[in-house]
């Protein structure tokens, strides 16, 4: 099985022509964040080649409503160069791992002016043909509630209360009926005992206590059954 997989992968690598091998870059699509928070913009790539030592990552930023993009990060030759003049000076940090094909950056202390599109471009020589990928950053003063959250919550709570009330209603009815049933059974038992005692003839007056003990024992047994 393993040898079959190895053979097919080698065959595919050999069959796929050089021109269609391209580097594929993955970032997110959209990121939401609050003012003043930090956010990590991830960027990774897929390439048919092994990760070379000359792998490069570069991030560019285009503010919302502007047509120019500026470069804010570049990693090459094993060293990371962060923005020290532009809008992100002292707020940008490289948290990626180029050896693992991860070129993520961390933006700290976001402002409302940071709304815009961030583009990541990665190159893995000799695999340099690829399309850069963009992630859109949206910074909010307070996180907006998604559509339907409150709607669903209100409907769920009301229907849940309804089901709860119906269940409690039927439970109360069931318990009350059961208590009435047990009381009637104990009364019936009392009447039967008194009838049998009268047939036996004169009896010592310790009977009421015996009858009470018998009914209390019956009640204890029934309560034990209820607890079960």
């Amino acid at each position: 099985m393993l040898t079959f997989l190895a053979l097919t992968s080698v065959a595919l690598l050999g069959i796929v022509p050089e021109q269609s091998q391209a580097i594929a870059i993955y970032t997110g699509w959209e990121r939401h964040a609050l003012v003043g928070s930090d956010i990590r913009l991830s960027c990774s790539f897929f390439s048919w080649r092994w990760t070379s030592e000359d792998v490069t990552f570069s991030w560019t930023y285009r503010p919302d409503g502007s047509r120019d993009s500026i470069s804010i990060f570049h990693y090459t030759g094993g060293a990371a160069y962060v923005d020290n003049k532009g809008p992100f000076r002292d707020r940008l940090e490289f948290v990626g791992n180029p050896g693992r094909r991860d070129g993520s950056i961390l933006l700290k202390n976001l402002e409302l002016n940071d709304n815009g599109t961030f583009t990541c471009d990665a190159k893995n020589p000799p695999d340099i043909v690829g399309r850069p990928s963009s992630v859109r950053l949206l910074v909010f003063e307070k996180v907006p509630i998604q559509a339907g959250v409150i709607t669903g919550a209100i409907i769920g709570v009301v229907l849940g209360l309804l089901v709860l009330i119906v269940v409690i209603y039927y439970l109360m009815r069931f318990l009350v009926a059961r208590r009435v049933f047990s009381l009637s059974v104990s009364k019936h038992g009392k009447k039967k005992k008194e009838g049998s005692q009268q047939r036996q003839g004169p009896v010592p007056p310790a009977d009421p206590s015996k009858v009470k003990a018998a009914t209390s024992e019956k009640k204890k047994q029934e309560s034990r059954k209820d607890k079960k």
Partner: protein
Amino acid sequence: MLLILLGVLILHVIILILLIVSTAASAWSVADNSAKDLWYKCLTNNRGYHCQPSSNEDWIQAVQALMILSVLFCFFSLIAFLYQLFRLVKGGRFFFTAIFQILASVFVMCGAIIYTVMRPNDGIHTNFGYAYVLAWVAFPMCLISGLIYIVLRKKE
């Protein structure tokens, strides 16, 4: 007796239809060329007819929830009415039906009030549309229907 039952049933069905139309129709706020409802706001300009989802504000979601709940409760009360019609003891009252119907009317009232107070105000010439009017009409009809169910007794 049969006539009264039939009349009450027809009234109930009419209220249910009014509630469904009011919840779903796109005419809560109308202006010259745009119509808004609880779910979408649609605009007709020289480029065609465009719709986008309504804003995600808290109050619109609350109105959506209340209108949906009122439709559900009206439907539940209809089912309870049909059930109690055949299963109730002679001389009994339609309590379940009445409770659900009155709750439905309370929900419609709350929804319509919230919409009235927080109405979306972009544009000067926006008026209330027919779906909003239907919601306000459905509320007293629903309340009266619920009260009728409290008073109604099952005979024969």
